[in-house]
């Protein structure tokens, strides 16, 4: 079986046990798999992942005794799950994160989860079903003074835009080509679930790194930027490519990303506004000084 290198994070089903030194993110399906996973991976276990209807399995939730869990909420309305579950979720601690879809329920889900100080992450690989809800979520993040918990990837985008360096979307969305791998339930290896869904894979667990590097997927990822310029795709004339880095249209060059561009522009505006405010505050402080103290 393929051994992934150290310093990589591999998302894998609980049925597939990976040897080596890589960190793992394990998709669990039954309560009894949790102790076995913990024992096998030890410190290599980065987090557990639960998806969809499994979140309603109270026994499964109660079986989780690690403090890093990624919950793929999918189409589920968090308000529909029963109270005991919320209580159990709260016990998971601050390292847990809810992956939520940009659909009609977005703002309600965000409001509810951040109110409990639970991290949320909007899944950028899913089509935006309700643009208005996404814009409201951005507004909620930027202007709600009660908010204490970051909403990703908005928070990271804002920080990166402000500092002009930081993690790219490829990294926040766990598609960093150098560090992230995804193993499907059938043992296929890819970059993430969206690539598998589009039948793009490096190979299987029986293949070597050299085999991976010969794959169509590897070649596509390695030449993504160049191909963008070769085909003069709309991305090369896009004012947000420095933020997106081609992530949104990596698979489909026609992917509808206008709403995300709108979000990027709102965040860029907020950064400018913030910087202007800070500059004005500094100026006022300077003016408040006596003439002798002022820097000329």
């Amino acid at each position, binding site marked *: 079986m393929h051994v992934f290198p150290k310093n990589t994070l591999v998302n894998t089903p609980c049925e597939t046990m990976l040897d080596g030194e890589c960190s793992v993110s394990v998709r669990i399906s039954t309560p009894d798999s949790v102790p076995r996973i913990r024992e096998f991976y030890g410190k290599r276990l980065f987090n557990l992942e639960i998806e969809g209807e499994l979140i309603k399995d109270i026994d499964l939730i109660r079986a989780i005794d690690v403090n890093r869990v990624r919950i793929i909420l999918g189409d589920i309305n968090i308000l529909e799950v029963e109270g005991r579950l919320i209580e159990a979720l709260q016990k998971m601690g601050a390292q847990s994160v809810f992956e939520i879809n940009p659909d009609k329920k977005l703002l309600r889900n965000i409001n509810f989860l951040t109110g409990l100080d639970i991290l949320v992450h909007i899944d950028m690989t899913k089509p935006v079903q309700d643009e208005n809800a996404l814009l409201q979520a951005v507004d909620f993040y930027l202007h709600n003074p009660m908010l204490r918990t970051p909403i990703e990837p908005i928070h990271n985008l804002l920080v990166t835009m402000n500092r002009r*360096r930081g993690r790219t979307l490829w990294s926040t969305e766990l598609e960093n080509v150098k560090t992230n791998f995804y193993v499907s339930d059938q043992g296929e290896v890819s970059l993430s679930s969206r690539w598998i869904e589009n039948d793009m894979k490096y190979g299987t667990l029986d293949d070597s790194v050299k085999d991976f590097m010969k794959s169509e997927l590897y070649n596509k990822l390695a030449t993504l*930027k160049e191909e963008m*310029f070769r085909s003069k795709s709309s991305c090369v*004339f896009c*004012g947000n*490519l*420095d933020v997106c*880095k081609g992530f949104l249209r990596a698979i489909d060059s026609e992917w509808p990303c206008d709403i995300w561009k709108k979000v990027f522009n709102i965040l860029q505006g907020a950064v400018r506004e913030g910087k202007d405010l800070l500059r004005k505050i500094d100026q006022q402080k300077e003016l408040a000084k006596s003439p002798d103290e002022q820097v000329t």
Partner: protein
Amino acid sequence: MRDSAAAGTRSLVFSGMGEPTLDPDFEEYLALAEELGFDSISLFTNGYGLKAEDVRRWKDYGLSSVLISMHGMEDGHDRNVQRKGSFREAVSAIRLYSEYDILVTVNTCLTRLNLPEIPRLCEFLAGFRVITHTLTFPEWSGNVPLYEENILDYHEVSEVAGDLIPEGNMIAMFEDMPYCLVRNKTREMQNRGIVGLLDGTGEHEFDGNARKIFPESCSGRGCVFQTVCSGFERNYIKARGWQDLKERVGRFLDLLNDPEHGDTILAELPDHPRTRRSPKGSRRRSDRGPHNSQVVIVKPTSRCNAGCRYCSSYKESQPPDMSPDFLDKMYAELFEYAALQGKKYITFLWHGGEPLLMGKSFYDRAWGLTTTVKDLRITHILQSNMLLLDNDWVELLSRYNVHISSSVDPIGQDRILKDGRQQYPDWLDKFILAASGGLHLGLVFTVTPSHIDRYADVYHFFKNLQTLSARPLGVRLNPVYPAGAAKGLDPGELIDPADYGEFLCRLWDLWCNDGKSFPLSPFTDWSEGKGTTCEFSGRCQDNFIEVSGNGDIHHCGRFTDAGLVLGNITNAKLVDILKHPQMKEIRRRSELLKDGSCKGCPFWELCMGGCPCHAYTTFGEITRETPYCPAYKMFFASSGLGSVEDKLEVN
């Protein structure tokens, strides 16, 4: 690192008993440092094996400054560090870090082997963006006792201090040299910071703990400079004794206590009432300017393998290519001229036609001939469409550190090949080859009417293209003008000045709102307060000439395209050729315009009348203002660059 960050430490330095970047986990440490939020992250390095991609990543991880060791010139440095090629590596590292705006400090450990080379090294480093160059008296530790014969005496440094760091050099400074021996050229004084190196004050006895020692007279006679003095190396004194150092200290203290000289010396002391501080942030700027630099545009061929519709260099009858044998004659003439004019820097811009058509052997000779030239700093730039570029070219260009400038247009339909196909796809492949080969690349964009409404696409394309290159890509904007093939264009295909002004205004807004994220000429120069590119300098006549394949001399590439020949260096001296009436006219131009049609123009300092050749090709008169005057006026007024407030800020 975690503990230090938690304890409030704000600055972090990666150093090592060896070279820290060799640690396989170096990047992991750097990433952690970034995560922990240190305000400044520094690296002590020798530049070994550095690549542009490394610098780009490390910059992203927050690396803010580096200290690079250079212990002599070329072989001198290699001998000192005992590895061939390490000088070139260090120079390359300085260039790379500077390009990414990482602050570079250079450290030189003074020894008997390298002392004679230091003035040359200081001069050499003045051409780089080095913020500080420290000349360090060695600590008496590590390998030093093994090479004792190479270790200088203090007085040997003291006696040549003025030659090593001449007055006005604010970059170089001594480290670990006592104040009285080199006066205000010490690190502490140059930095105007007070340091607490008082661990050995007043001591005579060796206690084995403190590394530094002061003669008793320093405290006994109340030397006020002890707060900014490094003192003497304790183990040096232990090994070699005080020699005449106490007498030297005594003579300085006599001067200090002498009413006639004391005030002058005291004025050097920071925070002393009579101290005159340097202006905030001041440091020596490069002395490079039109008076001592020369740009030589060489057009070895007029042939071209492309068919751009607006090509300004196109000629129906093509003169012969430059003969390789002519290079000797050309260089001899140019270097003689440079010596006569006191030029220290020469940039050769190899132009065409398409210069790569001359072949590799021509350039191997052309560039190789300049590697042995002393007393002149020579740079080569190639203006090329890159269509012939291959791995061998990349290797040749890298070997001679030749920069490439290339034109591209992803939008218009005017840049085509001879067979009518668009150049862009082939150009992009070559661009990727050049960028992945680590070449220094610059881009030229010719603005035509088809770009006016697509200003945002133009801006974003060049901004996004940066992602394909590990090095920053500067972009220069030029309006299409009626010379060469462009003479045959319909007037509607040439750019109207009002449209060009509008284009500049919109592009400027995007560039500014985007934090001026890449060098965009002429905006970069203008935003720094003054036009410094040739056409806005008002002094292009002082430092631009063009040499054609047959030895014809023109003022610049544009005048070559316009066909105004000044003479030929195969039958006349360059210095005489440049006395041509046309050059006199260009020299008079600034004065005529300033008192004539540009009189009272609030934007004069930024424009200086613009390009004389643009005036000539449009109006038939060199002494007219640029035909793009309405465009520039519209731009300066809109951008606020020429405003009174802005001028005050600049001054």
